[in-house]
Every structure is written in C-alpha cells, then in structure tokens.
C-alpha cells in the first residue's frame, strides 16, 4: 500500500536516511524500529512531506506522493501524528479534531466551522477513544497521554487509509497505554493500515505484524517480530556491535 524506494535524506553533510526501501502491506500494523538516530522520524517526515526527501520515490497505492504538499498527502488518505504532540492551543479538543475534517471545495470554506454532522462524527471518535469528557478542554491543557489520544482522534477525522504514528506510547502511563494499544488494534481490525515508530519493544512485539529495523539510515532487517528478534544484525545494532564487532 505504501512503498518507499531508495529514499535518501541529507542534512548538510549528514546522511540521515540512505537508500531506505520498504513496503507497508494493506491492513497490517507495521513497526519501524531502530536505535536512536537511526532515521525513523526522518523517514516519517519525508513520507508525510513535512520534510522534502533528497531523493527517492514514495508511492501510496501506486501513486507517487513525494512531490505533493503535506495537506495534499493528508487528503490522499495518509495522516500522521508527531513525536512531540503538536496541538493547537487556545482551541478546544473538539476544534482541534474538527480542524482535520476535509474541506469539500472552496465553497465549503464559508460554511460554519463545525457542522452538526462533523460534531457528531468527532464526538463519536472521542467516545471511541474514551475522551469525550474533555471535548471542551483547551487543547494545551491536557496531559501527555490525552494529547496523544487527541492527535489520534484528529487523525481519524480525516478518514485516513493509512496512519503513521510517531511514538504513540512515549510518556504515556501504562494503563492509558493499554487503552491506546487496544484502540490501535481495533482500528486495524476495521481495515486501517498502521505504520508505527516506537521505542517500547514489548509493545512493538505484541502489536505489530511486521517489523522493519533501521540503523544508521538504512534498513537492516525486515520480517515478523519473532524473526527480527532472532536477527544477528539487529542484535548488533542495538547492542552497539555492528560493523566493527
């Protein structure tokens, strides 16, 4: 469904991502893991076009998206969250979520900011994530976990086909984490494709169908969680062995 081919991203002389290629199959939960600085978030940024890739091709359902602008990618059905939750202060959770509702033609711009259908849909999503009680809180007043849930809610508002989650578990307390995991599973069961970057290995191994391991800007292993755990290159990358070991 999502194909990344020969993706490169340089920052000055630093090659953050080098010839990175992988596919995300439709209907799967795919995890992108790797030690710090492996280039996972850079890959995310390039796929969602928050950053322009230096070279390479990215295709969503066979269509090239690496020349599109971020909002166009979102409208094609690929939405992302950010590692450090970006939320819109001085706007309620409901407004934060409805912001991501797609606009149908320029005339729609002049319609009321939040139609009844949109509010209903947004509340449905907030209900699903169990946070409808904070619908009228200011987006910046939430706890870290609630912000992550709000991000997820906003993402779902745009009816995505594939979602990219950047560290959904980071800074979230264990009980809330279980809830997030449960919701991601449910969404996936309903047909949503998920690409996830995460440091919590236990969670990755439990949640994902396929794991892609990156180190130093390259994909070094790919496979089922069990395969990856047994892979020597992966162990080296995490334990700091690698080329010189």
């Amino acid at each position, binding site marked *: 469904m999502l194909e990344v081919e020969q993706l490169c991203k340089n920052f000055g002389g630093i090659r953050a991502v080098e010839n990175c290629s992988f596919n995300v199959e439709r209907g799967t939960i795919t995890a992108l893991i790797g030690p710090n600085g492996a280039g996972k978030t850079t890959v995310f940024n390039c796929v969602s076009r928050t950053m322009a890739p230096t070279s390479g091709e990215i295709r969503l359902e066979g269509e090239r998206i690496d020349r599109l602008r*971020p909002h166009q990618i979102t*409208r094609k059905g690929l939405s992302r969250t950010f590692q450090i939750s970006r939320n819109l202060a001085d706007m309620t959770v409901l407004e934060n979520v409805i912001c991501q509702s*797609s606009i149908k033609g320029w005339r729609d*711009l*002049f319609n009321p900011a939040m139609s009844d259908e949109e509010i209903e849909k947004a509340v449905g999503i907030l209900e699903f994530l169990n946070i*409808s009680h904070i619908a009228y809180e200011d987006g910046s007043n939430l706890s870290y976990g609630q912000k992550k849930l709000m991000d997820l809610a906003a993402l779902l508002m745009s009816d995505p086909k594939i979602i990219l989650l950047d560290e959904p578990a980071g800074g979230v307390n264990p009980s809330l984490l279980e809830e997030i995991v449960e919701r991601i599973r449910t969404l996936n069961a*309903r047909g*949503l494709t998920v690409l996830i970057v995460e440091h919590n290995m236990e969670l990755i191994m439990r949640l994902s169908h396929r794991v892609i391991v990156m180190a130093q800007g390259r994909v070094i292993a790919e496979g089922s969680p069990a395969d990856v755990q047994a892979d020597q290159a992966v162990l080296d990358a995490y334990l700091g062995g690698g080329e010189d070991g």
Partner: protein
Amino acid sequence: MIEFANQTEDSVVEARKARVLKMAKGPSQNRAAWFPLAVLAILLVFPALQFVGNFNYFIHLLLFAASYVAMASGWNILGGFTGYISLGHNVFFAVGGYFAGMIFARYGISTIILAPVAGLIAAILGFALGWITLRVRGPSFIISSLALVMIARILFDNWEFVGGAAGLALPANSLPVEWSKLPYYYAFIAMAAFAVWASYRIKHSKFGLGLRAISKDEIKAESAGIDTRLYKIGAFAVSAFFVGMAGAVWGEYLTYIRPNIFLIILVSVNMVLICLLGGKGTVAGPVLGALLIVAFNEIFVATLGASEINILATGLIMALTLLFFPLGIVGTLAKAGKLPRILNWD
C-alpha cells in the same frame, strides 16, 4: 470509512453526545447580538442632531473611529486570526486612496461608489504580495511588510502622474457645511459594520478555523490537511480589501491624496495598536480598540495641547492597559470568563 461504534451502552453514549452537542451550541446563546445592532442604529440616527445644533466635531470623531474600525478589523483577519503581524497595511490604504482618488479627480465618480472596486484592487495586490511575503513568518514577515511601506513610499513620492510627493487636491463636495460630512460618515459606518460582520462570519467559518490553526502551529495545520499557503494568502487579500476600501473614501473626505497622509507608519501602527489594545483575534476587539485610541488621542490633545506630551500620554495609557490586559481588553476578559455579554461578539 471506519465506523466508531462503541462498547459502552447506547444510552450512555447518547447522553454524552447530547451534552457535547448542547455545549457546541452553548457559547452562541451567551452572545448579545442586539448590542452591536443597537450601537449601529444609534450611529445611523446620530447625525439628526445636526438639526438642533452643530455636532460636526463629534461626527468627525465617529467617522474617524469608524474608519479605523474597518481597517483594524481588516488587519485583524491577517494579524489576529492568522497570526501574521503586518506593519505594511497602509500600503493598501494608499492603493485604495490613490485608485479611487485618481478616478474621482479625472471623471468625477464618487469614491464612495468606487470603494468596493478600490478594495478589490487592494485585495488583488494583497494576493500577489502575500504570495511572495507569506513564505516567511515571525520577525522576517514583519520586516518584509515594513520594506513594503518603504518601497511604496518611494514609488508614490516619485510618481508624477499621481502628483508625486506634493500629491493631488480633490474637489470638495458642494453640500452645506452641516451636511457635508454625512456621505463619508455613512460610508465609513457602513464599511465598519461590514468589516465587523465579515470578521464574525470568517471567524466562524471553516476558513476561520483553518486560519486559527495556522496561527497556533502551521506545520500541524498543514499536516491536518489545510492548504496553509492558500489560506494565508486568502487572509492577506481579504484584510487588504477592507483597508483599501477605507483608503478610497478617506482621500475624498480629506480632499487631497498625498503620500505623507497614507504612507506614514503611524497609520499601520495604529491598526496594530488598536487590535492589541482591544484584543487581537476577537471580533469586538478592533471596535473597542479603535474607539479607545481615538478617544485617548482627543482627550489628551484637548487637555495637554497638540505637543508631544499628548503622544506620550497615549503611549503611557497603552502600556498600562497592556500591562493589565496582556491579550487586549476583550481577549483578557474573555479568557478570565469576565467578558460582559454585550462585548461578546465572537
């Protein structure tokens, strides 16, 4: 599309949904729409006082304040809603003034009729300029807007066709002195009302929601599927429209157009100060701010004389107000939940 049916009992879900839906409509019930309408009605019949005395001075003050309400409300769409502070909006004031003034001087068509066209010209210019300058934000954008004023000033100072630095005199109307201000008075009141109504509509539209998102976090807004570039340029054009329209009539009212009336930094700074004082990003803010700035100026000129001291006093009041109302009067009161209902126009 994915369904979000829930495990929770239907009755509970329904109750919660109903509560949120009720809240969604809540703030609007708190709004006192009758108040601005009443103010408008009083302003419309105010000139009838001319039958019993000479109120030309007050008519001038109200006209002056209304012109600033129109301009500051326009500025607020870009500066308040979208978060792009422009110090160059007097360029649109000048473009509107010169466009309508030149046609008025040559063909005798009233600038009041020309005002919407002048606004459109300003909007088109705003669209083009925004396309270039809105690539940068923060201090860079402010400086680019200042550069715009300087470029425009040099251009108009040296453009002989429009009179260069000396400007052009425009014919005064032939009405008796007690009625001569009225056409402009009504024109500016109409523009101010239109600008306030438009800001209200924009603020409550999807366009406005997008603009607010841009002002908070542009990268997030873009990733949420908002075409940030188009929204920003659109906001620039709309805000230029109102300023250009006000400029058109201002020239005829003063009976001359000259670069040092339109293209002085004070005009654009006033728009910014009015919005900061009243509350940037609110609908009522520019109105309250314009009234206060005009009132301060007049009171201090009257009591302290037309020296620098009155400017100092105005500055002092501004500083004090912002010390206690950092988000502007309307903005700070609204945040504290103490905004009087009559000022809740959002």
